């Protein structure tokens, strides 16, 4: 069938404005971003981290990688040359969120063009969604997945209204050769402050441009901290757990009780240090009152604190699980003690049942080493769904998949937690050491044994 006669076929994709010549006004960076970057990714950590656009195995010359690393926290202010007789509409004024106004866990929208100018007809302004995973001053992390070429792209929030929060600094992060699945951002507000100051100081004819840079949002953004969106309350229930040289995450399930993983706090009676970060930093000693046996498929340990953790909202344990629901993991993976817990978002991708009882939860959140023992929450209800136990590594290729991970349903633990809280009896926990064979098979990621073949004799 012939095509209807029509306008000359456009190159695929959306009609674009032709490329416009521009001039470089400034190169600019945020010294605080670079300071936090050095603290979090420098020093002895440096050799673990790669921000190259290529995978760790790709050949990127050392000099090229050095250049990329040096330029990682730098941005540029350009002026597009006006076209003669052009009547460019001013367009909507871009709003900019003040630094620190977007809480951890808040949803974010990234907009960049994968592979840059390689094929803008197809890739221009591609969207990606995630949450603010962590922040250290103007250095922000999101789990919105971005690709090479999106560096410099804008990252926006939708609450209380659309505003520019940050620009993409490094779309790909690798730690110890594992893809981390997080994107490094630099907050926009401090960058624009540097630009304003530089424009005013550089040249009389550029000083006027300083007034044309978008302003930071006033109220409600400018509300005092106590009125600003504090973000999801459940983030505060995640704690850092240190047992000797091993550290991991944990979740407060009662004012004096923390659940973590056995591989974080393996021995009963071992002394454990628990650090909470919100509403205020607190460091409390505790000891392991229960840890499952190595043979148990449930990788769980329970820590009793020497004093109660005040002000930490105790999460509500979920009673049901809904595959596909929006979930969040809160854990100290990636940065550990260097800054507070990270929040990553995804969906509940599978609920594995044995005899109609949920025994394993799988999610698409980005989970990294150090997040074990951390809480899995329903992003809708804020209920505690489970305890993160592991992510996935392909032993053949050595590749790790942070976005496929396994959690122990809280319904497996809740009866024992209730019994212990009421009577101090560990009997309920001891049951976890006697999980049935089908449950063991599930957690060994094996196929359940087919019905035992009967002899014909």
């Amino acid at each position, binding site marked *: 069938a012939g095509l209807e006669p029509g306008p000359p076929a456009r190159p695929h994709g959306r009609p674009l404005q032709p490329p416009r010549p521009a001039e470089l006004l400034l190169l600019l960076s945020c*010294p605080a971003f670079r300071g936090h970057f050095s603290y979090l990714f420098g020093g002895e950590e440096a050799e673990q981290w790669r921000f190259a656009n290529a995978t760790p195995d790709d050949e990127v010359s050392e000099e090229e990688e050095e*250049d990329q690393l040096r330029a990682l926290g730098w941005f540029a202010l350009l002026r597009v040359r006006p076209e003669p007789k052009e009547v*460019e509409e001013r*367009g909507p004024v871009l709003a900019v969120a003040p630094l620190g106004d977007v809480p951890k866990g808040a949803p974010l929208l990234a907009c960049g063009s994968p592979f840059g100018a390689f094929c803008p007809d197809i890739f*221009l302004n591609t969207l990606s969604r995630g949450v603010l995973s962590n922040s250290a001053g103007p250095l922000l992390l999101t789990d919105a997945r971005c690709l090479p070429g999106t560096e410099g792209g804008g990252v926006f929030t*939708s609450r209380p209204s659309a505003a520019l929060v940050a620009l993409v600094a490094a779309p790909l992060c690798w730690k110890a050769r594992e893809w981390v699945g997080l994107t490094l951002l630099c907050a926009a507000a401090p960058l624009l402050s540097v630009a304003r100051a530089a424009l005013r100081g550089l040249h009389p004819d550029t000083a006027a441009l300083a007034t044309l840079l978008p302003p930071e949002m006033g109220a409600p953004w400018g509300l005092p901290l106590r009125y600003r969106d504090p973000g999801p309350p459940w983030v505060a229930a995640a704690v850092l757990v240190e047992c000797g040289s091993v550290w991991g995450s944990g979740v407060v399930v009662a004012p004096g009780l923390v659940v973590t993983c056995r591989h974080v706090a393996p021995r009963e009676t071992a002394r454990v240090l628990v650090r909470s970060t919100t509403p205020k930093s607190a460091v409390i000693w505790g000891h392991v009152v229960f840890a499952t046996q190595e043979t148990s498929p449930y990788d769980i340990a329970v820590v009793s604190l020497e004093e109660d953790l005040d002000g930490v909202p105790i999460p509500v344990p979920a009673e049901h699980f809904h595959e596909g629901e929006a979930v969040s993991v809160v854990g100290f993976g990636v940065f550990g003690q260097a800054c507070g817990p990270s929040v990553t978002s995804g969906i509940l991708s599978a609920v594995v049942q044995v005899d109609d009882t949920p025994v394993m939860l799988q999610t698409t959140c980005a989970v990294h080493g150090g997040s074990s023992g951390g809480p899995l929450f329903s992003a809708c209800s804020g209920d505690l769904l489970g305890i993160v136990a592991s992510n996935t590594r392909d032993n053949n290729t050595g590749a790790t998949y942070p976005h496929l991970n396994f959690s122990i349903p809280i319904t497996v633990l809740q009866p024992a937690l209730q019994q212990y809280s009421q009577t101090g009896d560990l009997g309920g926990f001891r049951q976890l050491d006697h999980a049935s064979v089908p449950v063991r098979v599930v957690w060994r990621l094996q196929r359940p044994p087919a019905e035992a073949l009967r002899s014909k004799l």
Partner: protein
Amino acid sequence: MGRQWGPAMRAAEQAGCVVSASRAGQPEAGSWSCSGVILNRRPGLVLCHGGIFTPFLRAGSGALTAASASFLPGDSCGDDLRLHVQWGPTAASPAGRAERGRPGLCTPQC
């Protein structure tokens, strides 16, 4: 995407652009490109990533590591730097309107 995202998506797509840098007279020598944000359309002020300028820095990438430096003037790059910015149709721009104004365009299945 949920309704809550409407304004953020519009803001993102209005502001989104792509920036490419190349050498005068040597466009075939390849270009470097990245994404950017249009801060103001008149005059066109754009913020993009600085990584694409490293090859053009007169003093090399070492200039970026000066501890206290928070900015470098535009003439830190050589005169052979050529920059281009490209963005999509905007609600305001005539091109976008012309496209939007042509009813009946369709993509018949063959």
